[in-house]
């Protein structure tokens, strides 16, 4: 029996969800919805009595204070149009599943196979001018995504007619029906998965390479052509054949090939980073054979640094890296991307991403408790209105990923303390969603080091958490498949933080009771990866796939084996502990199942109902699979024709004021407070430096600091940087500047360069050269080599072991054009670098907010002629050539000195100068303080080139004030210091680039910036008299400089907030 309960807010109450829909319809499509109400539908398929259904309605689903509800009929809510949106079959319905839990508890009744609860919504909207086209647009482009949802649009007349019709039909069919529950247009069709399929496995023909290649293509196995002979050779080996014969197998089964395909995939095996690169520099003729980027540039430096840094506990093998927090605790960190799924279904992809990365720390060592997360979103222009069609418009995509990380992070009870959002047209092809997770674990569990773990023969293989469905299985593609009412839409998933939080809490208690010796998560590759990899430790396993709990019947063996259904961990439990483990699991209402046993047979042995469906050597993957190879050709930027643009600086104050305001309003600079506020950054009670700081608590902080152990005053400092624009010139400098910025952010809040761990997340377009499909693949390959070289240089120079890292290749997309054409759009070569460290005393941490009027403002680090790929050039539509470069050695001295100054308490505020240069960051400092700031650019420390140019006045207008304001030279800080510490501070920085550039005002609340001395008298004459201001400057020098910027801080704040100020 199927019934439907509708609930809605009482008419007199504001319906915030409907108001949000109204606002978006207007903002995005200029469609005017006059009024709207949202109705929640809960469709129940179960044999229940009317009284039981009424109890569900009244006890669970209706809040009598605020809601109305109906069981017999749809709620009578007036509308011109009604849009119904429900899930497609097989899509995770979190609310349906919690309703099921509540009903079970209320009625003391289990749900039988085939029974279930499904949720959907209908939006009742009114508006005189609304057309069907408008409403379809709202349905398809705001409310629903066909990949996971279905929808129906009704005019009021259609709704009435459908209701009547189904009423009549049901009457005709069953005149004795008492309640006629089914007399309604929507809410009675359940998106139930029905496969009607008898599970089995196939054997695969491997008579020739071509035959196997053909099958690989047909079945979307994605086997690399170079791997095919190796696979065939293995299965044709007489010894292998003989041992397989003994268990009833001959040719490889689909389960086995899927296992190999998963394990050999770039995602699991990092073939690109372990590939061989033939690198050639076209201008110098330099050639180099890069044998293995991972080994050379990541593994070697990290292992060496592990030896040097006593705080590094465990790196490079587990789900996350481990560092020492204090004598009793270790912290754990890793970062992931979830790009492709988010690109298709932004909310589902992002929530699955954040919830998924949270399983990594939980699956590191013997398991750690989650303590923080962060995000990085890279999307196209949210106001894009050109001809190219991405799967989702960037604006909608951003809304979705913001919401996905919100629900995933907040509902996990983990603070999201840091995040960045940036925009570039390249991300129209594929947007990027970075998610990072940190955890903490006691350094010892039951006397054993918690970062070590192993599986042993005889251990039981346990799967805990969610159930297995056709989720995330390759080959189920949205567009190419004909979708029936009951086809599972499993390729895009929706993470379930609720189920995972229960599992997280349970597993930590089981850990502390010493109930397991090994734990890992099920992510990419599902059981195939988690069991396959963990069985290598014990040297074998036997798996009983028929024991694996399924969401619905009819999955083939290979599907169970590789399904990426979320919220699952794989755990090795000794038989003597299994009863207690299961008891605890039950107490926490977490499903755990023994699905096999670890062995030392040397074999991965998989059975289904006692029949073998896979039997391969556990070391099969080490059997000489060939390395991937790439050609990498570097063409330096000047040879590529990049030059500096020919510019004259703006003239006078009006020009500079406007320029600064336009810079502050740039999408990549402007305030994104609306995103940050949606994330709980205080849960767990250890917030020390929040993501937003300043008197109005709206300026993004350089880094965040949390106190993960509440009884301690030690902290974890965390920052990230993303500077993909510099890849337009040279990915070497992109990488080094990115790392430098992340490091500076750490130092700016009081972290120490002696303890910084890094996480590198590479997102790269396809690097395999193809004359038509990827003509610039060789160049992108060279960019990758160069970025890796910078990674090594930076990690050695700054002493940063890479605690974790991931790569996501193929950030390209084919977008439909205006004429039915298609255009390949590749993202910029992008690396998100995360830096983390331990702060010994959080009470010494500082932020970027200048604290007191009268304090002196310093700039540390030199400003050079480095506007290449800057925000300023982008504003002007230019790229330029002079990309910022990092001088690790020199910078490090400044960082150490600043660290010392902060530690001694003489620094009132510090801020790392980032995108947008000094101009933007003076403005942000001023905004954060709410106080005026007098700055004189004449005292900004300059590079030797610039300072001699300035001295000689040789070139007309060079260096201009625009260069000083917007050059993005790395290695710089804005620091404020109380006057009484001036001499101590300056003594500390003696011999280093440190200029006292101004003062926090006690008389006005403007940002006032004086330019450097005009180089020609004519130039001065051409400036109006009012541009000269006799403001008191430091020590009375440079009285003849002139004021180029003079704007109230609150005006700057408004301008900076305006572009995204209306968003919530």
């Amino acid at each position, binding site marked *: 029996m199927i019934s439907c309960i509708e609930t809605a807010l009482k008419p007199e109450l504001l319906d915030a969800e409907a108001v949000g829909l109204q606002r978006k319809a207007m903002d995005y499509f200029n469609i005017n919805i006059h009024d709207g109400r949202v109705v929640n539908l809960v469709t129940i398929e179960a044999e229940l009595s009317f009284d039981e259904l009424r109890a569900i309605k009244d006890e669970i689903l209706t809040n009598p204070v605020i809601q109305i509800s109906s069981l017999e009929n749809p709620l009578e809510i007036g509308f011109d149009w009604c849009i119904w949106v429900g899930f497609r079959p097989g899509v995770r319905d979190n609310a349906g599943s919690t*309703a099921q839990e509540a009903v079970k508890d209320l009625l003391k009744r289990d749900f039988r196979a085939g029974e279930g609860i499904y949720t959907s919504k209908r939006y009742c909207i009114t508006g005189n001018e609304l057309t069907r086209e408008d409403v379809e647009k709202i349905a398809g482009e705001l409310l629903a995504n066909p990949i996971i949802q279905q929808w129906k649009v009704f005019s009021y007349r259609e709704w009435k007619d459908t209701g009547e019709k189904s009423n009549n039909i049901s009457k005709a069919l069953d005149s004795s029906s008492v309640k006629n529950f089914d007399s309604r247009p929507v809410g009675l069709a359940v998106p139930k998965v029905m496969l009607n399929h008898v599970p089995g496995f196939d054997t695969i023909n491997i008579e020739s390479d071509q035959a196997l290649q053909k099958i690989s293509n047909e079945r979307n196995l994605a086997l690399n052509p170079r791997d095919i002979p190796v696979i065939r050779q293995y299965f044709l080996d007489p010894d292998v054949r003989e041992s397989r014969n003994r268990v009833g197998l001959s040719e490889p089964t689909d389960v086995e090939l899927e296992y190999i395909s998963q394990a050999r995939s770039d995602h699991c095996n990092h073939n690109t980073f372990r590939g061989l690169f033939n690198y050639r520099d076209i201008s110098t003729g330099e050639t180099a054979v890069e044998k293995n980027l991972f080994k050379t540039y990541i593994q070697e430096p990290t292992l060496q640094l592990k030896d040097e840094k006593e705080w590094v506990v465990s790196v490079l093998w587990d789900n996350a890296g481990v560092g020492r927090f204090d004598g009793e605790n270790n912290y754990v960190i890793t970062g992931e991307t979830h790009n492709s799924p988010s690109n298709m279904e932004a909310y589902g992809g992002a929530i699955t991403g954040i919830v998924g990365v949270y399983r990594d720390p939980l699956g590191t060592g013997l398991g750690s408790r989650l303590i923080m997360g962060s995000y990085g979103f890279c999307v196209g222009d949210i106001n894009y209105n050109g001809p190219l069609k991405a799967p989702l418009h960037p604006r909608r995509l951003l809304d979705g990923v913001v919401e996905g990380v919100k629900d995933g992070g907040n509902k996990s009870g983990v603070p999201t303390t840091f995040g960045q959002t940036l925009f570039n047209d390249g991300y129209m092809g594929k947007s990027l969603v970075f998610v990072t997770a940190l955890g903490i674990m006691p350094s010892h569990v039951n006397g054993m080091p918690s970062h070590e773990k192993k599986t042993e023969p005889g251990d039981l293989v346990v799967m805990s958490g969610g159930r297995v469905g056709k989720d995330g299985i390759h080959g189920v593609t949205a567009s190419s498949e004909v979708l029936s009412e009951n086809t599972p839409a499993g390729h895009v998933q929706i993470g379930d933080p609720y189920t995972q939080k*229960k599992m997280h*809490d349970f597993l930590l208690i089981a850990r502390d009771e010493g109930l397991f010796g090994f734990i890992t998560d099920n992510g990419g590759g599902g059981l195939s990866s988690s069991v396959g990899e963990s069985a290598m430790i014990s040297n074998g396993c036997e798996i009983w796939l028929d024991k694996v709990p399924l969401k619905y019947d009819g999955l083939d063996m290979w599907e169970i084996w590789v399904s990426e259904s979320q919220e699952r961990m794989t755990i090795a439990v000794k038989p003597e502990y299994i009863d207690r483990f299961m008891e605890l699991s039950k107490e926490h209402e977490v499903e755990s199942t023994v699905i096999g046993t670890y062995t030392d047979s040397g074999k991965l042995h998989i059975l289904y109902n006692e029949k073998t469906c896979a039997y391969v050597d556990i070391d099969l993957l080490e059997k000489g699979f060939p390395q991937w190879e790439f050609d990498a050709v570097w063409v330096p930027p000047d040879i590529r024709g990049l030059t500096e643009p020919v510019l004259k600086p703006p003239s006078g104050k009006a020009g500079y004021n406007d320029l600064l305001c336009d810079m502050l309003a740039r999408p990549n600079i402007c305030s994104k407070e609306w995103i940050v506020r949606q*994330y709980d950054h205080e849960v767990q009670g250890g917030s020390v430096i929040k993501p937003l700081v300043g008197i109005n608590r709206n300026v993004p902080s350089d880094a965040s600091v949390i106190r993960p152990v509440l009884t301690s005053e030690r902290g974890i400092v965390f920052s990230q940087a993303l500077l993909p624009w510099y890849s337009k010139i040279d990915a070497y400098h992109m990488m080094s500047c990115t790392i430098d910025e992340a490091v500076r952010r750490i130092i700016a809040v009081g972290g120490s360069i002696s303890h910084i761990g890094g996480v590198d997340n590479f997102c790269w377009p396809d690097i395999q050269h193809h004359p038509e499909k990827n003509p610039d693949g060789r160049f992108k390959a060279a960019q990758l080599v160069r970025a890796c070289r910078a990674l090594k240089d930076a990690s050695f120079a700054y002493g940063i072991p890479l605690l974790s890292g991931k790569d996501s290749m193929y950030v390209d997309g084919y977008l439909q054009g205006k004429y039915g054409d298609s255009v390949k759009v590749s993202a910029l070569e992008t690396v998100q670098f995360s830096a983390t460290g331990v702060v010994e005393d959080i009470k010494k941490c500082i932020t970027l907010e200048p604290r007191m009027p009268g304090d002196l403002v310093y700039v540390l680090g030199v400003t050079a002629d480095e506007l290449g790929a800057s925000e300023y050039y982008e504003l002007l539509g230019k790229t330029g050539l002079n990309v910022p470069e990092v001088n690790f050695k020199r910078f490090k001295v400044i960082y150490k000195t600043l660290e010392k100054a902060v530690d001694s308490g003489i620094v009132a505020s510090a801020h790392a100068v980032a995108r947008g240069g000094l101009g933007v960051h003076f403005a942000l400092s001023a905004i954060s303080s709410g106080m005026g700031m007098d700055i004189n650019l004449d005292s900004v420390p300059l590079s030797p080139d610039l300072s001699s140019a300035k001295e000689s006045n040789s070139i007309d207008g060079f260096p201009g004030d625009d260069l000083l304001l917007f050059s993005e030279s790395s290695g710089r800080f804005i620091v404020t210091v109380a006057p009484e510490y001036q001499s101590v501070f300056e003594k500390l920085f003696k011999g280093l680039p440190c200029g006292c550039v101004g003062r926090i005002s006690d008389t006005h609340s403007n940002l006032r910036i004086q330019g450097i001395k005009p180089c020609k008298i004519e130039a001065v004459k051409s400036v109006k008299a009012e541009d000269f201001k006799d403001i008191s400057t430091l020590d009375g020098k440079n009285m003849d400089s002139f004021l180029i910027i003079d704007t109230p801080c609150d005006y700057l704040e408004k301008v900076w907030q305006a572009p995204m100020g209306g968003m919530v």
Partner: protein
Amino acid sequence: MNRANGKKIKAVVLTGFGLNCDMETAHAFELAGAEAHRVHINMLISGKVDLDSFHILALGGGFSWGDDHGAGVIQALKLKNHLGDQLLSFIDQGKLVIGICNGFQTLVNLGLLPGINGDYKTRSVALTWNDCGNFRDQWVNLSVNPKSPSLFTRGLYDLSSDNLALPVRHAQGKFVADKVVIDTLIDSDQVVLRYADIHGKPAMGKFPENPNGSIHDIAGICDTTGHVFGLMPHPEAYNHFTNHPDWQSEIEILKRRDKNDRSDNRDVNFHGNCLASLPSPGLKIFMNAVNYLSEKFGEPLLNQKS
């Protein structure tokens, strides 16, 4: 019969089913001098842990059952169906209950709040979607009703600083009820906390000072006895002075004051250590509860921080 008999006051903080905030809530109770236990709801239901062995019950923040069918709704149902009588008897014994955020939502769905005239079963108020339609994390200023019977907020209105500031972090925190109920709550001083401006004056519905559109700026209420208290802001998240958004400014001001009178050359950490040794305003809510209970049920605590 449930006297603490010289033992510490025992607090139980619920866990499980998507709840979070249990670690810091337990920590806050510990700092306030209690012995805090984080206990899974099912342990109370199964009787493996006896609710009666505690003096104060904390329903903390989180997303119980994902908040999918109204925040706190299913948790309330679960508690009502399995522990309903025990909860009523717990309150009968003069013990205390605090509901924070999701816990507050649960208490109002249970009917334990507002508990007008001892009616602990009727749902008469609700916490619904914020007017902004979204989850919001921000610090709010609160005005504390000095006439409220709440045992948790005693003395908080005399705070030397301007007013009580705490973080809110919720999507469904808008307090609504019929006018009659609101008037009753106001008249009986059951409105304990109101969202306020920076000077401690009620926000009068103005966003973002009132972050969710709550009627009458209501941020927290108690029952008529003052024993049951529910609030949307998170006092447990202000358990250390460094939780406050302006803590660095506070230190900087103290440092400058020193420098001005040049009286001594103190260590950089001097002021931080001083501030860290004082109980934060958030903690005072927990201390009030523990102090009250130890007067009533146990020995006075010896090492009270002042």
